């Protein structure tokens, strides 16, 4: 068997598709070919589960080892089916959404997709690229007539989430050895995840601040933002002092 064919066959075996020709080639001192292959399947599953649990520790704790392992298996199939090239761990929240919608065992954990989104946002904030030093001095070079076109640039670590379950409270609760009882109240709110002194942090935002950050992250101009959020100036002071925005940019004028 040629090397390329062998690799394809081994890959298929690890995905659960038997290949008789490959099995005839496999040798071991004391295991049958199927046992060798199962060993690799188990190792893959175990490693994947361990890696996902590092990214989603509270989700893993809430689901328990068996359910989380099953979810991890499903995530593995999802990776193969979709051929995703995104970083490992992306998309677990959407898979959880599918699972919580379709599986009765997860009826009491409807908040899990949002909790997983929070945990993923914390990972992104923790590992995000460094921001350039804050710079608003260049504002003085922008003519007043052009200022309406300015865009605010957010910190690269900043993540904004629209949640309905109290997932920040749940996450905080599970940082203790003995988590207390969960009080689940369904209410739409904004969560901001950011990095402070190298650590990821999250906090709840007012509705106007949440809408403002959403506009900034979508690249809206100062003019658009001022129409969307009436108390813009008040919020801008806060955004600058928290280093949630780092600088402004003046995009090329497409009308000229």
């Amino acid at each position, binding site marked *: *068997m*040629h*090397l*390329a064919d*062998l*690799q*394809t066959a*081994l*890959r298929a075996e*690890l*995905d659960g598709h038997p290949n008789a020709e490959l099995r*005839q*080639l*496999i*040798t*071991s*001192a*004391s*295991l049958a*070919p199927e046992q*060798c*292959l199962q*060993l*690799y399947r188990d*190792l*893959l599953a175990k*490693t*994947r589960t*361990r*890696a996902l649990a590092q990214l989603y520790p509270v989700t893993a704790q809430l689901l328990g080892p068996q359910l989380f392992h099953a979810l991890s298996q499903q995530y593995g199939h999802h*990776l*193969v089916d979709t*051929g*995703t*090239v995104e970083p*490992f761990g992306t998309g677990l929240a959407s898979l959880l959404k599918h699972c919580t919608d379709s599986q009765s065992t997860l009826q009491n954990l409807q908040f899990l997709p949002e909790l997983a989104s929070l945990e993923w946002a914390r990972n992104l904030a*923790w*590992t*995000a*690229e*460094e921001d350039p030093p804050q710079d608003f001095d260049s504002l003085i070079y922008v003519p007043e007539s052009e200022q309406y076109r300015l865009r605010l640039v957010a910190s*690269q*670590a900043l993540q904004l989430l629209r949640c309905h379950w109290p997932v920040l409270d749940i996450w905080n609760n599970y940082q203790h050895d003995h988590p207390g009882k969960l009080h689940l109240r369904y209410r739409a709110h904004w969560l901001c995840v950011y*990095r402070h002194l*190298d*650590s990821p942090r999250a906090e709840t935002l007012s509705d106007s601040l949440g809408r403002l950050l959403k506009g900034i992250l979508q690249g809206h101009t100062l003019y658009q933002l001022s129409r969307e959020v009436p108390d813009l100036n008040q919020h801008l002071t806060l955004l600058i002092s928290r280093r949630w925005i780092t600088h402004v940019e003046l995009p090329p004028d497409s009308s000229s």
Partner: protein
Amino acid sequence: MCEKIHWSLAGTGVGLKSCHVDDIINAGDGIRWVEILLEQHLFNGGAALHDLERLRCNYPVTLHGTGLALGSFAPLDMDYLARLKQMANNLEVSWLSDHVSFGSLGQFFSHELLPLPYTEEALDHITARISQVQDYLGRRILLENPACYLGFNHSTISEGEFLAEMAQRADCYLLLDLNNCYVTQYNLGIDAQHTLAQLPARRVREIHLAGFDDHDTYLLDGHNTPVHEPVWTLYEQAQQQFTATPTLIEWEHDIPPLSVILGEVSRAQHIMQQAIKTRRPY
């Protein structure tokens, strides 16, 4: 022509775990160098990267990865390679290493290192890929022998011959993992001492030591226990053959306090010193 090797680090090092960063920085002379597991630190910013910069101020560092998939038929991941190169340059690492295996295959991503058959075809394939990577990085890399849980009966070359020939043809170095050698010996019946004897000393630039899980009918390369006695015995033999080769203690799961790992470091350092003392002058 006798190749002159510049040894940019020496002695026994430890693999970096994030829970040990401050302890390692404060460990002083007990640790000679630190190996960074690339996949756990390949970030663009943040605490993990800052930890590496702090460590680099105190120790020589090496990079060890599992993502090059040098035996794979999938195209090289040039994005991964670019990030690897940038990180190696930023941290001024002594060297970087990966494995003789294939993991990811196109859209199939594998955390596990999958074994290659030891054939001329595989040798040609991996040699060409190593050369491509070395040309891109502008430096030689080290390739590690894998722990195998299966072999292929159409292999035509022994593991030792394969590694030696690969290193010679690609002009790369070898990272000899003695735990992997022992695990493969147990699982596949390949004589580890025979493998060692076939390796050219001037190509072996690093040795890995770790613990395994004994499942009776097979051994797993667990990296979660102290180094086992048969592996220490292999290490004593290896240090006679590859004297003063820098050695790393790997411990990745069920991580104990650093002091426990430093006990293993101390034992490896002692064996290395004994080998240096008894080395025949040449």
